[in-house]
């Protein structure tokens, strides 16, 4: 794969991760358990969607076929979305949403910290802004996980259920394939597989504070990077794409 093709694919994956997770968080708007979280969750959604916009715009620029951020974000088929399976998992209860957010944000904070030194100036600039936003997501979700884990019997059970359900989706974050390897070699994107140890130890520290154990055995689930999604993804895209499909080229 030539470097531009790899860069396009690498950016598309990152863009899709952020759009899909941002969309999932936005589904909480008006439904959170308390007003404070009803603002906090959409705040995080807006951080992610803002990052997705910048990433999609750059993806379109790299592709060089005149597609803008909306065309890439809203007008593809399901198998053309390359996001991690983790980020498309349904919101479930509040514990599921917070665990999913924590897993992804800890990973992305480590990823952007390294990407600040990217040889690609645009990626370095995106990383510089995103790393601060991710640091807050980590802090906010981490504090919730400690309190839910070390809270009531019910909150501990819910957080344990969320971890059991979502932990199998975390391995996909650290995968490296031909696309990413060529970008790693060119020092454009960091090597995700190198982030695993630090991710484990950051997660472990918070879980220990919340008296939560990490599943020792699980069956890793992957496929999103190849465009193979869970059945929930179709419903998500139906919502996400509705306006652009119904009113093509609409703007606000």
């Amino acid at each position: 794969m030539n470097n531009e093709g790899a860069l396009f694919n690498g950016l598309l994956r990152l863009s899709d991760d952020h759009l899909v997770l941002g969309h999932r968080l936005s589904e909480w708007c008006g439904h959170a358990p308390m007003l404070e979280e009803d603002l906090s969750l959409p705040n995080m959604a807006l951080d992610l969607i803002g990052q997705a916009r910048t990433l999609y715009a750059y993806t379109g620029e790299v592709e060089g076929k005149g597609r803008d951020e909306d065309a890439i974000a809203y007008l593809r088929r399901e198998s053309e979305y390359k996001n991690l399976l983790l980020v498309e998992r349904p919101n479930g209860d509040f514990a599921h949403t917070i665990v999913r957010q924590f897993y992804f944000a800890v990973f992305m904070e480590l990823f952007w910290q390294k990407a600040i030194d990217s040889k690609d100036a645009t990626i370095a600039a995106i990383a510089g802004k995103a790393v601060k936003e991710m640091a807050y997501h980590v802090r906010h979700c981490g504090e919730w996980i400690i309190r839910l884990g070390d809270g009531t019997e019910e909150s501990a059970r819910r957080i344990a259920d969320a971890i059991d359900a979502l932990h199998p989706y975390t391995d996909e974050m650290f995968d490296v394939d031909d696309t990413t390897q060529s970008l790693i070699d060119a020092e454009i994107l960091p090597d995700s597989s190198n982030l695993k140890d630090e991710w484990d130890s950051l997660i472990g520290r918070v879980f220990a504070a919340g008296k939560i154990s990490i599943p020792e055995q699980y069956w890793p689930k992957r496929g999103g990077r190849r465009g193979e999604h869970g059945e929930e993804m179709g419903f998500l895209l139906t919502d996400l794409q509705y306006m652009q499909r119904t009113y093509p080229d609409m703007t606000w």
Partner: protein
Amino acid sequence: MSEEIPVWEVFIRPRNGLSHKHVGSVHAADEVMALQAARDVYTRRGEGLSLWIVRSNDIVASDPSDKEELFEPAADKIYRHPTFYDIPDDVGHM
């Protein structure tokens, strides 16, 4: 919910050199979560550089029924306002 989760008063300092100003309240289980809730609820449009939070229960307030004895005595003491001085023109804006 309000019986289980305490209420906190939120104060924001908008810029260096200004003082913290009360902006509202949030519900949160403890001070760490209260600070985050205050950030999420009250600083979404760049309102501040610093946040204070105080448990509402820790605020000592005057009793509204005491307002006559507390505040009315000030009403007829206009000499406490510095409005009786002639300020020379060349002093400029004070």
